[in-house]
C-alpha cells in the first residue's frame, strides 16, 4: 500500500505531483491511500509523505481534466483524492473518458465540481457584510459558513466587486481579507469574532417583506435555491416564517375587500402622449396622421407602425416601392435599410437629387412571418395592395408629381391598378393620367438578392438607366413649365 499525505485540504499541486509519480511508477488506484496532514490515515507508516523524487517519463491528460480536478479537489468529501487518481489512471488508456457522461466516475467527479461551483456561487450571493465604523472609516466584515473549501476560490470575486472598501470574510476554515490592494488569508475563526448587527438590516428586512407577493406563495421554490442551511447567517431569513404564516390571510383580504372610491377627483395635469393636431393647410401631414391608425387590412396588427411616404410636399417625382422591410418598420421611415442605400446610390448616379424625390410604398405596413429571432419578408396579396391603394392615390393627389416610378411588381400593381409584368413594360413612359407619366422598373432589393456578381452589376446598370430616363423626363418637363 502507498500512503500519500497532502499538505492541506486544497493541496492541488501536492496531489498532482504525487499522482504523477504514482502513475509513472505504475501504482494501481486500489493500492494508494490518500489523506491530509493532521488528519492522517490510522495505519499510515511514519515515513509516509509527499514523494519528492520524480521518476522519468511523461504522459498527457486532457486540459479539461486539470480544470475539473482543480475545482473538484475543493470538495469536502475525503474520497475526492482517490477518485481523481482513479480517473487519471483510467484516462491514460481512454483519452475520451470525460465525454462519457454515463460513466459512474465521470458522474461523481462532475457532480463534485458542480457542488463546489454551486457553493462558490451561493457564497457570492449570501455573504452579508456588516459595517464597522462609519463613512470613510468604515470596514465591512461578514461571517459565512461554506460547505466546501471555497474561500480561496470565491475571494477574488469580492476583491473585484468591492475594491474601494476594506472587507473581511470570516469562516470556520479560512478568513479572507482585502485592504484595497491585495487579498490575504488567515486561519479560520469562530462566529463570535464577527459583528452581530448592522444599521441597515432592519431596512433590508422591510424591503424583503414588501417585495414578497403573498398571493403567490411557493415555499419549495424558495428553499430549492436558498436551502435552510444558509438561513442562520441571512438577516432577512427571520422574516420567512411570519411572512408564510400571514400570506394566506393577506391574499384573501385583497380578494375580499372591494375597491374603495377614489379620495380625490381624477384630474390630469397634462394630457399624456399628446399627439400633434392636424392642420388643414398641411395636407400631407393630415394624411400621415390619418394613415397612422389605418386598419384597412390586417397587416397593421403584427407590424410596428404605418410607414408613410417621405419627401417634399411638391416633389416632381414620386418613387413607389413594394412595402417597408424590417428596418423601415422599426424606424417608421421608408427606404432606410439596405435597399434604401442602394436606391440612394443609384439616384446620385442618375443625377436625381434626393430633395426632388418623394419616396413611398405601395403597401404601408410590413408583412412578415416570425422565424425565431428574424422576420421573414412576405409578398403582399392583391387584397392588401388594393386596401392600401387609396393612400398612394391621396399622396399622389397632394403632391401632384409629373412622374411616378414604380419599383417592382407590387408597386407596379399598386400604381397601375393591375398586375403588370416588369420586363415587358420597363424602358418607356406610360400615361397614368393627363398630368402624370409612370415608369416601371425593378425594386432595388431585387438587385440585392441576385447571387451572381456579374448579373448584379448588369442589372444595377439597367436600373440606373431607368432612373436616368426619369431624370431626362424631369428636365424636359421643367423646361416646358
Amino acid at each position: 500500500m502507498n500512503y500519500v499525505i497532502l499538505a492541506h485540504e486544497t493541496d492541488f499541486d501536492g496531489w498532482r505531483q504525487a499522482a504523477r509519480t504514482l502513475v509513472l511508477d505504475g501504482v494501481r488506484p486500489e493500492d494508494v491511500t490518500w489523506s491530509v496532514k493532521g488528519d492522517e490515515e490510522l495505519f499510515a507508516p511514519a515515513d509516509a509523505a509527499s514523494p519528492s523524487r520524480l521518476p522519468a517519463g511523461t504522459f498527457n491528460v486532457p486540459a479539461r481534466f486539470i480544470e475539473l480536478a482543480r475545482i473538484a479537489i475543493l470538495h469536502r468529501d475525503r474520497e475526492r483524492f482517490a477518485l481523481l487518481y482513479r480517473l487519471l489512471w483510467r484516462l491514460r488508456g481512454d483519452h475520451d473518458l470525460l465525454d462519457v457522461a454515463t460513466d459512474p466516475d465521470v458522474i461523481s467527479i462532475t457532480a463534485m465540481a458542480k457542488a463546489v461551483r454551486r457553493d462558490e456561487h451561493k457564497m457570492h450571493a449570501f455573504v452579508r457584510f456588516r459595517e464597522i465604523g462609519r463613512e470613510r472609516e468604515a470596514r465591512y466584515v461578514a461571517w459565512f459558513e461554506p460547505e466546501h473549501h471555497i474561500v480561496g476560490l470565491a475571494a477574488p470575486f469580492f476583491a473585484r466587486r468591492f475594491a474601494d472598501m476594506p472587507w473581511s470574510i470570516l469562516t470556520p476554515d479560512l478568513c479572507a481579507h482585502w485592504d484595497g490592494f491585495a487579498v490575504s488569508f488567515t486561519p479560520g475563526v469562530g462566529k463570535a469574532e464577527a459583528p452581530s448587527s448592522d444599521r441597515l438590516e432592519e431596512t433590508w428586512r422591510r424591503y424583503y417583506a414588501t417585495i414578497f407577493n403573498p398571493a403567490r406563495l411557493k415555499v419549495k421554490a424558495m428553499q430549492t435555491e436558498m436551502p435552510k442551511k444558509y438561513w442562520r447567517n441571512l438577516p432577512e431569513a427571520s422574516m420567512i416564517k411570519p411572512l408564510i404564516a400571514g400570506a394566506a390571510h393577506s391574499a384573501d383580504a385583497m380578494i375580499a375587500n372591494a375597491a374603495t372610491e377614489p379620495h380625490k377627483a381624477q384630474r390630469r395635469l397634462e394630457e399624456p402622449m399628446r399627439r400633434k393636431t392636424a392642420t388643414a393647410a398641411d395636407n400631407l401631414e393630415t394624411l400621415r396622421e390619418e394613415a397612422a391608425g389605418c386598419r384597412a387590412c390586417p397587416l397593421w396588427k403584427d407590424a410596428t407602425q404605418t410607414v408613410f411616404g417621405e419627401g417634399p410636399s411638391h416633389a416632381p417625382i414620386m418613387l413607389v416601392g413594394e412595402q417597408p422591410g424590417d428596418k423601415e418598420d422599426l424606424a417608421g421611415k421608408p427606404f432606410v435599410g439596405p435597399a434604401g442605400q442602394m436606391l440612394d446610390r443609384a439616384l446620385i448616379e442618375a443625377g436625381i437629387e434626393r430633395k426632388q424625390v418623394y419616396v413611398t410604398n405601395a403597401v404601408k405596413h410590413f408583412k412578415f412571418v416570425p422565424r425565431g429571432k428574424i422576420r421573414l419578408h412576405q409578398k403582399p396579396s392583391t387584397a392588401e395592395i388594393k386596401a392600401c391603394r387609396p393612400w398612394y392615390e391621396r399622396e399622389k393627389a397632394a403632391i401632384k408629381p409629373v412622374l411616378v416610378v414604380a419599383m417592382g411588381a407590387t408597386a407596379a400593381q399598386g400604381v397601375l391598378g393591375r398586375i403588370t409584368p416588369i420586363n415587358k413594360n420597363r424602358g418607356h413612359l406610360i400615361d397614368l393620367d393627363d398630368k402624370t407619366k409612370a415608369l416601371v422598373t425593378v425594386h432595388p432589393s431585387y438587385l440585392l438578392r441576385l447571387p451572381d456578381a456579374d448579373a448584379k452589376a448588369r442589372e444595377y446598370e439597367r436600373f440606373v438607366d431607368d432612373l436616368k430616363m426619369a431624370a431626362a423626363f424631369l428636365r424636359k418637363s421643367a423646361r416646358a413649365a
Partner: protein
Amino acid sequence: MDVQRKLEILADAAKYDASCASSGTEMRDSSDGKGLGSTAPGMGICHSYAPDGRCISLLKVLLTNACNYDCLYCVNRSSSNVPRARFTIEEVVKLTLDFYRRNYIEGLFLSSGIIRSADYTMEQVVRVARSLREEHHFRGYIHLKTIPEADDALITEAGKYADRLSINIEVPEERSLARLAPEKDVRAIRRTMGRLRLKLEEAKPDEKAKTRPSRFAPAGQSTQMIIGADAADDQTILATSANLYGAYRLKRVYYSAFSPIPDASRALPLAPPPLMREHRLYQADWLMRFYGFEAGEIVEGSGWLPLDIDPKLAWALRHRDRFPLDVARASREELLRVPGFGRKAVDRIIETRRLASIRSADLGRLHIPKQKALPFIILSDHRPSPALLDAANLAQRFKPKAAQLRFDF
C-alpha cells in the same frame, strides 16, 4: 415620511414586475480602484429568495407611485387609494449603494409612475442612473423602465447608463389594453421597442470600424405580459411573444400571472393568480427559444396549453407518428423534441453516443425522467411496444393523480 416607509410603499408598488434578472451584460468591475461594484459572469446572482419563490437580485423600486394613468390591473392606478410616496434622486442612490456594499443586491431596477409627462418621468429615472454611474462610479447592474414615447435623447442616455431597458406590453391583446389601460397605447409601446432595437443594433461593435460605438444597454431589452387579466388564450399569448421576439429581438418576455392587488378594481378577475398557467407559458416560451418549436405548433386546436402535462409532452402525444426515436441515430433537432430531454441532456447524449451505447439505466445519470421518456425512445436495451404508443390511454400515464392538482384555474 422617512426613507424606510417610502421604501415599503415604493417596493410594494414595484413587486408586480416579474423581472429581477441581472444576467447577460458586459463584464465590469472596480479593480481599477475607482468606484464600486461589478457584474457577475454568466447567469447573474440572486442574493435572496422570497417565500413566493422569486429571486431577489436587484433593489426593485418605483421612483414614485403617483401616476397619471388609470390602468385597472395596476396597484398604482390613479383611482386607487394606496398610500403614495416619492423618493428623491439622492435617496434612491444612497439606498442602492448602501444595500450594494452589504452584498444584498446586484444593483437597481428602477421604474416609475407617469407624472407630468413621459419626458419628465423618463428624465427623473435617467437622473438616478446618471448619478450612480457618473458621481459614484457605480459598476453594478442597472435596469431602467423605459417610458413609451420619451424623447430620443433621453432614451439614448438611459441606454448609456443602463444594462437593460424594458417596456411592458402589459396584456397580449391590443383591444384589452384599450379597455384596461385607456391611456396606454400599444402602438406607442411597439414604436419605442422598435427604436430600442435600432439603437441596440447600432451599439454592436463592428469588427471593421475603428471607433467603438457608444454604449447602449448591453443586456438588451425585455418586456412583461400579464396573464389572466383578460380573456386572451395561450395561443394568442404565444403568438404575441413570437412576434415580439422576432420584431424587437427581446431578451425575454416575462409572464406574470395576474395577482390580486390591494384596493383592486372589481372589473378584474379577483382570484388567486393562475400560477400553473404561467408556468406552462414559460415552458412553451422555452420551447420556442431553445427547442426549435414554432408558436403555432405548441398550441393546436383549442388554443389552450394543457395544465396537467407539459407542452412538449402534449405535443409528442399529438405527434406519435414521429416516435419512437432511436437515440443512437436521431438528430439534435429530433432529440430536443423528446419529452423529458433537456438541452444539456441532449448535448451529453450526443457526446456520449460516439463512445458508448446508451441504455435505459443511463437515463437517470443524464437527469432524464425515465417514465416520461421511455415510451418515445429506442435505446440499445429498450424498445417500447408499438401498442403502447398507439394506446388511447397513453396520455393518462403522465397525468398527475387528481388529488395532486392544487392549482385553481
